[in-house]
């Protein structure tokens, strides 16, 4: 009997212990956080996972404008995708200066950044985070056990968004780490891909997406979703800059792929393309990143462009926001590109002066008045703390100017003059009788007027050989008032030191 008691006690103890050992197998108890078996059960869950591939361009993290940032070690606002892109592609050029003293921000316009620059580092990690998110979606969708009604289309969308990121990677950083959906999370450090090889990869991805994928046909996708026009534009940008990226002229290929765009036209009113209800401008906007005053909030994208460009004596009510951050203005060089009759001259001049004697003084330099949080009827956006204005990543007007440029660079483009004149006509400025009257100098100026604050200026100046050169100067280029040329290595950004040290496969770009 006694023995039995001991055996019984032993059994109770063993049962107790084993259940306690079982406690070590945990799953998250945070209602928002789940393992795959709970998070990815239905087709809708996968749809939500796909949505993050878009949202990653629009916000910084999983909670509001600055919460649960996808990237650690950097402020959520600083590391937002399209804010980072503007830091590196707008503030570095004749287009804009920003008066703040945040960290190394002044080094951007001074063309004097280093391989440990916070803003360069932030945008770099953001690009690759975004590619990782797309890879993860493709990986999960491919092995999904539930039936996904639009599986092929969703995967193609993630690939198209990924190609958009790779375009930023090849344009800004050149030689970068590479991984696609076949790599697993936390595997060995990604391999390095050389710029020419990356060029071929993006080219074949885009070509396949245009020719063979289940992507929506052009203008068939619900607003916000990618259709075949997205890979067309990525591929066209790739060909346009092929000389820079891969040392070969591909202007004919660029024009040919642009000819595949169908159904787009210029929106009658230029200013409406940048307002709180610009989601209606699908005639011209090919692909946009959404913002919403209540549901899609960030300190980047158009929020950054609008708040940072507002200051001085500007009427914040006309901008549709509570108060500005007083940062971004244009250089005098840029201001002088606009004639008074140009309809694209969306500036705030009152209380501002043209010359920039002091970068930190908002009233030095004319202010931008292009992106606003009011609708085309003049009504304010939903909220005055965050804007509703979407960011046009690709516009048809850009495609038209690219056609004209390809023609001037030797491609056979039948509708080049028509393209050029359409853009000029809408702006209310003189048209040309023949392409012979249009020069490359005119094209780079026209691109400045048409596409300012949309993040293309650095790439354009690099392609025209004007970005680092001493023959094209603007206020405070190279850190001095009159401007000066800088080393050619600044045409590419450095691989951030932190990643260079973590990934032994990477090779630093020359000059850094």
């Amino acid at each position: 009997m006694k023995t039995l008691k001991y055996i019984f006690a032993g059994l109770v103890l063993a049962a107790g212990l084993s259940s306690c050992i079982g406690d070590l197998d945990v799953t998250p108890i945070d209602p928002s956080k789940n393992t795959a078996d709970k998070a990815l059960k239905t087709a809708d869950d996968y749809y939500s996972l796909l949505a993050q591939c878009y949202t990653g361009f629009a916000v910084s993290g999983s909670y509001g404008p600055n919460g649960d940032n996808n990237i650690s070690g950097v402020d959520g606002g600083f590391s937002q995708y399209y804010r980072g892109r503007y830091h590196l592609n707008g503030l570095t050029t004749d287009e804009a200066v920003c008066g703040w003293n945040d960290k190394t921000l002044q080094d951007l316009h001074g063309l004097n950044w280093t391989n440990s620059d916070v803003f360069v580092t932030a945008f770099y990690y953001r690009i690759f985070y975004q590619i990782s998110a797309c890879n993860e979606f493709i990986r999960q969708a491919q092995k999904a056990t539930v039936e996904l009604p639009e599986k092929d289309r969703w995967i193609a969308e993630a690939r198209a968004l990924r190609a958009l990121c790779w375009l930023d990677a090849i344009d800004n950083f050149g030689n970068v780490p590479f991984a696609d959906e076949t790599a697993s999370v936390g595997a060995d450090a990604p391999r390095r891909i050389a710029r020419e090889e990356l060029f071929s990869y993006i080219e074949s991805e885009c070509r396949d997406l245009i020719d063979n994928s289940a992507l929506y046909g052009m203008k068939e996708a619900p607003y916000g979703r990618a259709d075949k026009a997205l890979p067309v534009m990525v591929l066209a940008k790739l060909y346009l800059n092929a000389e820079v990226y891969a040392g070969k002229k591909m202007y004919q290929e660029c024009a040919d792929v642009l000819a595949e765009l169908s159904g787009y036209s210029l929106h009658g009113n230029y200013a409406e393309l940048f307002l709180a209800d610009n989601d209606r401008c699908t005639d011209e906007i090919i692909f946009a990143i959404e913002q919403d005053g209540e549901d899609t909030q960030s300190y980047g994208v158009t929020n950054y462009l609008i708040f940072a460009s507002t200051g001085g004596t500007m009427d914040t009510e006309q901008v549709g926001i509570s108060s500005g951050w007083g940062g971004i203005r244009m250089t005098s060089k840029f201001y002088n590109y606009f004639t008074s009759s140009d309809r694209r001259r969306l500036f705030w001049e009152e209380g501002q002066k043209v010359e920039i004697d002091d970068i930190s003084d908002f009233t030095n330099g004319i202010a931008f008045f292009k992106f606003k949080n009011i609708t085309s009827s003049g009504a304010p956006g939903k909220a005055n703390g965050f804007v509703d204005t979407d960011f046009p990543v690709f516009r048809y007007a850009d495609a038209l100017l690219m056609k004209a440029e390809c023609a001037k660079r030797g491609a056979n483009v039948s509708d080049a003059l028509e393209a050029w004149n359409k853009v000029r006509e809408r702006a209310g400025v003189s048209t040309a009788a023949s392409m012979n009257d249009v020069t490359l100098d005119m094209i780079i100026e026209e691109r400045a007027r048409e596409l300012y604050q949309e993040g293309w200026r650095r790439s354009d100046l690099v392609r025209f050989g004007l970005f680092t050169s001493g023959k094209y100067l603007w206020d405070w280029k190279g850190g001095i008032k009159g401007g000066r040329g800088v080393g050619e290595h600044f045409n590419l950004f450095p691989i951030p030191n932190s990643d260079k040290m973590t990934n032994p496969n990477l090779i630093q770009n020359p000059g850094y």
Partner: protein
Amino acid sequence: MAGYSWQQFYYKSTDYKYRLDNNAALSEKAPAGELFLVSFFGRVNYSYDDRYMITATLRRDGTSRFSNNKWGLFPSVALGWNIGNEAFLKDNDVLTTLKMRASWGQTGQQGVGDYYGTLATYYTNLLGSWYQFGGQMINPITALGYNADLKWETTTTWNVGFDFGFLNDRITAGIDAYWRETTDLLNHIPVPALGNLTNYLDSNIGSLVNKGIEFDINAIAIDSKDWTWQIGGNVAWNNTKITKLTASPDDLTGIETGGISGGVGNNIQMHQVGFPPNAYYVYEQVYDADGRPIEGEYVDRNGNGKIDAGDKYFYHKPAADVTLGVNTTLSYKNWTLAASGHGSIGNWVYNNVASDGEMLADLWTNNFTSNRLQSSLYSNFGQACYLSDYYVRDGSFFKIDNITLGYTFPNLFKSRKLERSLGLNIYATVQNVATFTRYDGLDPEVFEGIDNNLYPRPRTYILGLKFNF
């Protein structure tokens, strides 16, 4: 002896906000987590003749934090030899106690980072991070980064020590020497871009070796009818170096750490093989003829003609070389005066308050003014120079922690009937009395060496009454 322990750690916080007019949710965040630790342990003691002792322990620790490496096994053995009980010392009146100790043991650490950092998890986005497809609101799901391979950090310690007692143990002393190796060191570090779903993760980063000697002594200097005076002190020398970094096969590259405030995304420290952990990794400041720092001018240490990340160098560390402590108590009849203090030599501090608060450009930006530190008049930096060694300062200090003066009434009231008495002790104490240091920040005693968010330690005056029944 054998034992078992079970621990659960649990947290939950809520952040719910709703609109007053239509009850729409503005925020519905309820982060929560739990961690379980389970241990089995056994100990065997054996003592022979009060002269030879051996103790062996074995622990098996489990944690829910490392889903693929939950268990760690940590043994230890300690030997003791009470030399004082040997025949040749037994009757010695001067050396009354002499013991020798030697031990080897392993312990495990798991207390780093996220409770679910080894699991592939998916986060359902909260308000403000939603997206619309064709006007239809979608609540996106974010795949989070994780490190499935995370495992226990293990520390192996070798220790040899002696305990001495002289003159009937009026003077006691101990000396210990140790050598400690920590492997699979846990740390939050950058991971290669594109290799994971984030850029920072908790990781097992490498190994470090920690060597030191500790010495303590306690003496009763005076012990007469009215007077007693006790003095005690300890001093420890410590040296720590990183011996291996997993992510650095060539031992050439380090791991950045030590995020600072102000310069967003800036790290001021570096783990590197052959250097102490968290060593400051900074630019070497250039000074003018008057000894003032020149803004933005650093020594081109690698001689490539420009100042870039290659010019940074290792300059001191947060950990002290020497720590020491003293305490003393002096009693005269019913009076007692006690004091204690502690000090640290060779601990360096990054003065982040100064590096972030001296930037003169921020005095006046866009029509608002902000306060600057008085020390900005000396440095005269227009822009912040976060990564200059100018801000890495010697934090060596000695602090008087406590002085107490007391008087005791042993028998304030007496009751024969109850055979009880009431005693009273009146005392006055000052805590955090004084700090002696060259450091010009608030307090040189800074955890991990980055002085940016220190809660000031108060000086406390206490008058007390203590009754003894």
